[in-house]
């Protein structure tokens, strides 16, 4: 594969289009990226793409951004990563910039305010649907510690108003300890 301007343009335009037309976050854009780069362009192998997705999901930050960094870096090193980041970040940057300039005027309109208020109840429903789905997954492990951590973290964040980062650090350390302890138990699932 030649790294000529045409290649970089193709890399940029494909990540830009994926980012601009994908509603619904990282879990929706990942399969579309696979389709584009594995099936359509054949730039990345099937197996390797699965590994890249695993790394993207294991890293902090937005999954779509992480995956695009990895794809760009894999195809053309740091310049490739910069091109794919730009392609992924520009659409939301442009769209939200335009929206934020109209926001004050929009918000003052009674009809818009009524629709937004309805949507707010809708977004609360969407969030709780996600939370219930994730909580069921945690419960399915049938282990006491994760459930206790979940309840404890909720109480600490919502009732006690603890710092979010502190809660994440405590739970991350507990998770690391549990993983190491589990390994020492002779590979038992800990």
């Amino acid at each position: 594969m030649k790294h000529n301007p045409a290649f970089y343009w193709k890399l940029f335009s494909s990540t830009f289009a994926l980012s601009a037309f994908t509603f619904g976050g990282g879990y929706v854009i990942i399969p579309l990226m696979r389709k584009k780069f594995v099936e359509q362009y054949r730039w990345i192998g099937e197996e390797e793409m699965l590994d890249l997705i695993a790394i993207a999901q294991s890293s902090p930050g937005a999954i779509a951004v992480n995956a695009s960094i990895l794809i760009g870096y894999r195809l053309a090193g740091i310049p490739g990563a910069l091109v794919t980041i730009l392609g992924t970040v520009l659409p939301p940057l442009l769209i939200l910039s335009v929206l934020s300039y109209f926001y004050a005027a929009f918000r003052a309109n009674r009809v818009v305010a009524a629709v937004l208020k309805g949507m707010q109840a809708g977004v609360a429903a969407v969030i709780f649907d996600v939370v219930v789905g994730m909580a069921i997954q945690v419960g399915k492990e049938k282990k006491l510690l994760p459930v206790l951590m979940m309840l404890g973290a909720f109480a600490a964040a919502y009732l006690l108003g603890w710092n979010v980062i502190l809660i994440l650090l405590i739970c991350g350390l507990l998770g690391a300890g549990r993983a190491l302890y589990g390994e020492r138990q002779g590979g038992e699932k800990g």
Partner: protein
Amino acid sequence: MMAYLALFWSFFQIGLFSIGGGYAAMPLIQEQVVEINGWLSLGEFADVVTLSQMTPGPIAINAATFVGIRVGGIGGAVVATLGCVAPSCIIVLILAKLYYKYRSLSLIKGVLAGLRPAVVALIAAAGMSILTLSFWGTGGEIRLASTDWVAVLLFAAGFFVLRKWKPNPIFVMLGAGALGGVLYLVLDLPV
């Protein structure tokens, strides 16, 4: 200049600690933007989450742009977005190098498994803030008499539809917006 630094640092922390994708960034954005720096009110934050659902792109980038413009114009939006993606760039590339060397992510997977219950709980806590805002407004007082029953109805109906038929959330949002818009205007309720 100080405002740009504060923006960069806040969104750097959001990028660094939002693990697990999707809504994981939401509680961190709320803490940094609403509670620590007071750049947005809780109502405006809820609007940003709502707009993020209706537009493409990750919620953290959307929030970075919206807050950045509010605090420092287009420059602020760019600085906040850079702060948000910087930790990803660094950590993703380090992990990729480690991965190609060892072909195993077992300790990282262990840490992630430990974080999952916390992430669920934190998303729930941020969701509670939006829910109470939606049901009882910005006053923060939870009283039966001041309950917005239209919002309760929309929430219950939306939740039921999502659990039962698992549609794309965007349709639930559009439905809640349309139905809510009509009900609030026809019943002449405060919005």
